[in-house]
């Protein structure tokens, strides 16, 4: 029986790898997701046949699966695509919490996992267990904060106070002390103290990180949820948990790396809440600087006229598009322009939006074919040939100061070269600076036209003008 379940776990692990492999192309991705589902089903069924399982237990498990499963299914069905980042954050928190509870289950019934008996759990298992609790609890509370920030239940502004890093470091040391005494004594009180302290630590680690850095945070918590699963896998000696945890952990780490590179910042810089402190001062200075040059503001009709005569149009969407829910009307505009004979493409910056690939999903939702959606390296050479760059809800990712101004906080960040297009439209609510608190000199260029207003409304008006 043990051999069969081990084999089943192996098959599930391979299916999980194939699920990730499928995501290399949209065509194969749906099959990949299916592989993932099959793998999970195999893992669950194989575990239900585990030695020592009784009828009462199986009923309890099926009730839990049905209960949680129906909640999950309903949420997945109802959720709006613009709310995806907060949904993913919420899901990460559940993995973290589940890890803590599995660790608790293992602590209170060690013989079920073959790691010892009550009060006599193997030292090594206690070490692994404390790792599992700590990572799980940090993932939980960190994800709850990320969720609250992304969902607007909490201000996205970084929360920074004096001695923050010192406090975090002190709590980290305290956590280490607790873990050592837990391993030495195996006391239940210490078990829960480790959990509590880790909750506090997860909370404190995420509050100083600002809204636009959320792609890094979401990726990082994705990674943590994997390491938590692997930690539990070591505790209970289960290969499938270890393999899957490693896959997820590596995946999240790569995404965090890609997001940091997209901002030319180190992960440490993001975690310390880098932009937060600077944003306040720079924004105040920016207010005065905004008066310095005349800005050319245009009407949607003007924009429609120019775009009607354009051959090549590149649309640059940002988080503002998601907030305004402008993706559908944006696609309508694209379709009308294509009818006029123009070539329409979409340029996606790696950190546009609030989670990796956020813009791609929203454009896909609006039925934009994925061939028209281009990555930064691919599209940048094309801006020089473009007649129009239509920047909707993006700002910092187009700012040429990232290339020229060494003192700018965004210096070195790869940007979309919209300034090379013949005409640049900026759809914006006002003249405020972007997340990094830096003025965008593009607003003051002669070939730039500002279209002030809500992203959806402005685009709608352009669509109406194009239809005339």
């Amino acid at each position, binding site marked *: 029986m043990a051999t069969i379940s081990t084999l089943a776990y192996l098959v*599930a692990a391979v299916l*999980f790898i194939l699920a*990730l492999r499928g995501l*290399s192309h*949209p065509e194969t991705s749906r099959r990949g*997701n299916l592989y993932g589902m099959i*793998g*999970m089903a195999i*893992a*669950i069924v194989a575990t*239900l046949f*585990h030695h*020592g*399982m009784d009828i009462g*237990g199986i009923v*309890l*498990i099926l*009730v*839990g699966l*049905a*209960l*949680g*499963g129906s*909640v*999950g299914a309903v*949420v*997945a069905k109802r959720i709006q*695509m613009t709310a995806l980042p907060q*949904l993913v954050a919420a*899901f990460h928190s*559940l*993995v973290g*919490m*589940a890890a803590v*509870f599995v660790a608790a*289950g293992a602590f*209170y*019934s060690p013989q*079920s996992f073959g790691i010892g008996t009550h009060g006599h759990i*193997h030292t*090594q298992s206690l070490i692994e267990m404390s790792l599992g609790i700590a990572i799980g609890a940090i993932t939980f509370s960190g994800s709850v904060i990320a969720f609250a920030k992304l969902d607007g239940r909490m201000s996205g502004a970084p929360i920074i106070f004096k001695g923050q890093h010192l406090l975090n470091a002190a709590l980290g040391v305290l956590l280490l002390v607790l873990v050592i005494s837990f391993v030495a004594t195996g006391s239940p009180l210490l078990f829960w103290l480790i959990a509590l302290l880790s909750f506090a630590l997860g909370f404190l680690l995420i509050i100083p990180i600002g809204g636009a850095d959320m792609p890094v945070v*979401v990726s990082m918590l*994705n990674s943590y949820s994997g390491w938590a699963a692997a930690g*539990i896998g*070591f505790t*209970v000696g289960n*290969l*499938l948990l270890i*393999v899957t945890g*490693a896959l*997820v952990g*590596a995946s*999240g780490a790569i*995404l965090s790396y890609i997001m940091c590179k997209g901002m030319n910042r180190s992960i440490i810089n993001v975690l310390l809440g880098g932009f937060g402190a600077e944003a306040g001062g720079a924004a105040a200075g920016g207010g005065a600087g905004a008066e310095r040059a005349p800005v050319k503001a245009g009407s949607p009709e003007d924009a429609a006229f120019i775009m009607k005569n354009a051959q090549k149009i590149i649309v640059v969407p940002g988080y503002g598009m998601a907030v305004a829910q402008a993706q559908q009307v944006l696609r309508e505009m694209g379709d009308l322009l294509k009818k006029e004979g123009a070539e329409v493409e979409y340029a996606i910056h*790696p950190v546009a939006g609030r989670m*990796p690939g956020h813009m*791609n999903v929203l454009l896909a939702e609006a039925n934009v*074919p*994925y061939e028209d959606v281009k*990555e930064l390296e691919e599209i940048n050479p094309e801006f020089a040939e473009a007649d129009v760059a239509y920047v909707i809800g993006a700002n910092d990712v187009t700012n040429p100061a990232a290339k020229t101004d060494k003192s700018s906080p965004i210096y070195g960040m790869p940007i979309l070269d919209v300034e090379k297009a013949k005409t640049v439209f900026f759809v914006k609510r006002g003249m405020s600076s972007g997340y990094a608190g830096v003025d965008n000199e593009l607003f003051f260029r002669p070939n730039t036209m500002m279209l002030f207003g809500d992203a959806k409304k402005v685009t709608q008006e352009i669509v109406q003008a194009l239809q005339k």
Partner: protein
Amino acid sequence: MNPTDLANQATATANRALELAEAARRAAEAVAPVAQAAEPFLYLLTIFLMACFVGYYVVWNVTPALHSPLMGVTNAISSVIVVGAILAAGTADNTLARIFGFIAVTLAAVNIFGGFLVTRRMLAMFQSKKRG
């Protein structure tokens, strides 16, 4: 050297050998549980590191356009922690541990169904020009 001395010496040597054997036995006993525990740990660690490499190479092949679905899938499969939850809920010898297991099963189930289904919804939206 007379026979008595020789006999005494032989006895002393034999005793010394016995002592050494006893010490070796005690040392072996002390090491045994550690050795038993260490071997599977190294084995698990090896598999863990290999899986990290597999994850690394597979994920670099994921197209950036599908990074959101990637998070959806990884989130769903990290709920494989449900395996541990099921063991606690179904085989524990006390109610408390079973309750913890039950809560973990429920939380992980939200994630499994929610994660895979939301990913399926996302992927269904990615359409090619040819079909769209």
